[in-house]
């Protein structure tokens, strides 16, 4: 069954996908730096009236929880926040693009968090996002 992106159901499926990704278990095993928020910027044309976030409680290679929140609610709870417009997230998920490349191109932005720490865990970030590919996803456009 396909889950609408982003949504509560997609978030739950994504958590399961992260925990089922053996590469993430390895790459993220040393990550103890807090929650990560993936924030989709508001886009009224697809029914996102405000920024929406998938807040991942990741620690030591396991995703202990995932919440679907407004961006406003998620930002203070996250140690790291990556934000971007809907179409860029969609492209990242469909094409399994490298998140670092997306950051370099300015299509996504690290709006909260310690960049040197994120760089040290670049493989962990890649595996976290590539887990999204295994979620059967229905896009809003």
């Amino acid at each position, binding site marked *: 069954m396909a889950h609408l992106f982003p949504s509560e159901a997609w978030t739950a499926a994504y958590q399961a996908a992260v925990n089922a990704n053996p590469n993430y278990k390895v790459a993220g095993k040393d990550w103890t730096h807090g929650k990560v928020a993936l924030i989709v910027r508001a886009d009224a044309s697809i029914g996102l009236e405000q920024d929406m976030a998938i807040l991942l409680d990741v620690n030591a290679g396991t995703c202990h929880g995932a919440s679907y929140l407004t961006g406003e609610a998620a930002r203070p709870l996250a140690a790291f926040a990556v934000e971007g417009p809907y179409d860029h997230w969609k492209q990242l998920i469909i094409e399994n693009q*490298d998140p*670092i*490349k*997306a*950051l*370099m*191109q*300015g*299509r*996504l*932005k*690290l709006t909260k968090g*310690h*960049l*040197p720490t994120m*760089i*040290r865990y*670049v493989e962990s970030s890649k595996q976290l996002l590539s887990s999204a590919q295994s979620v059967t996803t229905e896009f809003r456009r």
Partner: protein
Amino acid sequence: MGTLDYSARIEVLASAQNNGLAQMVADLILQNLLEHPDKRDAFARLRGRVAIVAEDAEVAMTLEFAGNMLTVHDGIVGIPDLTVRAQGEDIIQMSLLELIPHVGLPNLFSSSGRAFMHKTQTGQVRVYGALLHIPLLLRLTRLLSVY
């Protein structure tokens, strides 16, 4: 000696505000200066232009160092003393080069150092101007390293 206000000494020009690579490198340098006082000497001594091109991301930037001052440009501006061309991920790997303790030079015998050297030998990472500007390259590496 007081600490300089490094955030005021690193200027990302308006034209580079949407250049993610430029923002990342500027943020990285600022964080490193704030958290690693031992890198400040390298920043004070850096003079010259360094172009960085992330080929897969099709993004380029220029770092213009002028001794405790850095201007970050979008694209390649002026004639760079050094030009680094690589995949985006390999540019990030440059910042993971471990340094030799107390010396501050890249440790080319570490796993990250060996991987970097291999990529330069196979042409995956190309550094133009390195032989003519060795001090610039070493100081830049020190400044960019997160260690």
